């Protein structure tokens, strides 16, 4: 039997097997914007001011932060809600504990991508950027229109972006 002053695990080991992954919380904390998350006292200021949560209850930043800290890896990374953040930073600016809420949402998306879960909307945008260096195609027609309006012509493709994507192994992430 362990002596009475041995520190006890903080997380509950009696939860259903596979549901909780303690390393997940620590992994998020070690990444961009994650460190401050440990200060969260779940006041809900993030959710109260969120333009998405106001309309759609699927998205609730306070709940997501608690899920991450609890270690609910699969439930978070496989969810649809991590893709619903509009990225407006209202939560982050208002958090009384300085939690980088919006940055954490971005980090969670990046982690989902590492697990092979890529939202099709972002995948499509990335493929366009890989091909042309931009999201919208500039055709000869557009450049003619620009010249007529007294605007400088634009390059149709910027090859550098392909090189940088390859270097960063973005193509493999896109699946």
């Amino acid at each position, binding site marked *: 039997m362990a002596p009475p002053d041995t520190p006890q695990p903080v997380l509950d080991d009696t939860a259903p097997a596979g549901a909780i992954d303690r390393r997940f919380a620590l992994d998020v904390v070690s990444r*961009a914007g994650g460190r401050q998350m440990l200060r969260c006292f779940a006041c809900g200021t993030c959710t109260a001011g969120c*333009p*998405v949560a106001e*309309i*759609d209850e699927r998205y609730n930043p306070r709940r997501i932060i608690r899920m991450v800290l609890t270690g609910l890896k699969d439930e978070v990374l496989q969810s649809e809600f991590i*893709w*619903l*953040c*509009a*990225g*407006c*930073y*209202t939560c*982050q*600016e*208002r958090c009384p504990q300085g939690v980088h809420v*919006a*940055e954490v949402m*971005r*980090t969670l*998306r*990046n982690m989902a*991508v590492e697990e092979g879960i*890529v*939202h099709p*909307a*972002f*995948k*499509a*945008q*990335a493929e366009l*950027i890989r091909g042309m*260096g*931009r*999201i*919208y*195609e*500039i055709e000869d027609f*557009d450049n003619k*229109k*620009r010249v007529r*309006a*007294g*605007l*400088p012509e*634009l*390059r149709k493709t*910027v090859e*550098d*972006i392909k*090189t*940088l*994507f390859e*270097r*960063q192994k*973005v193509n493999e*992430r*896109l699946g």
Partner: protein
Amino acid sequence: MSDSGNGNKRPYALYLGCTIPARVQHYEIASRKVAKALGIEFTDINDFACCGYPIASLDARTARLLAARNLALAEKAGCDICALCTACTGSLTEAAHELSQNPDLLESTNKDLAAVGLRYTGGVKVRHFVRILWEEVGRQKIEAAVVRRLDGVVLAPHYGCHYLKPSEAHGEFEDCEAPHSLDDLIGWMGARPLDYPGKLKCCGGGVLAVDEKLALAISRGKLRAITQRGADAIALICPFCNIMYDTNQKKIETIFGASYQMPVLFLPQALGLAMGFEPRDLGVQMNRVPPRGLLDKIGLK
């Protein structure tokens, strides 16, 4: 022209991003006209590409690298950056801020940039065009350039989120919970800036590609609030906010069974009208909802 910190004036490279040249040329046309008349010189850098913003959800490091590539191009040309899109402004500003704070990150970024023959040493200033108008051109010069005051016109300012936030990266140039740069500029044109509930709320554009109805529901709140309070138009500063309120307005009206017919002007278009340009010179014919009532009020058709 901007002050680079060592007392030398550096020109601004005009950063257009993806959306403006393809979908909202009127914003570019109006901004170039207004800038020229106010003595702001723009350099065009043909190699500029994506700011990185759309990639951040997939891989924030690649997004930062794409932003850094543009910063390096500006540095090579001896320029600071003037952006018209708030998402581009935010992406480039965040990258410039992070790279200035973290020498290891700068070094690893430069290893990647070497693959495309570029290097960034730091110090490129990123500014939204409207911030330059407010901060560097200023009240005196703008009021002196106004020859057709927009008296009696009510404009609802819409601050794009990434114009101000994250505030730390933007150097907290104004309080993101109580900004007034757009209100000030509207006042300098002779128009009245409208105060309204939800003034600082996001347009919803960030979720348009993920859940269209949700995004349009977010935009709808603002259209409703400013219609009830008698705005003649929204004045905004981001192509994506414009897509939400102008391009998608009819769709919002259809989905939610409402009627707004609320004109949406880019702030430089409104300023251009006040500076005596004709609507056609400012691309007003390309605005989806025609600002007829507003033009009537200032004696134009």
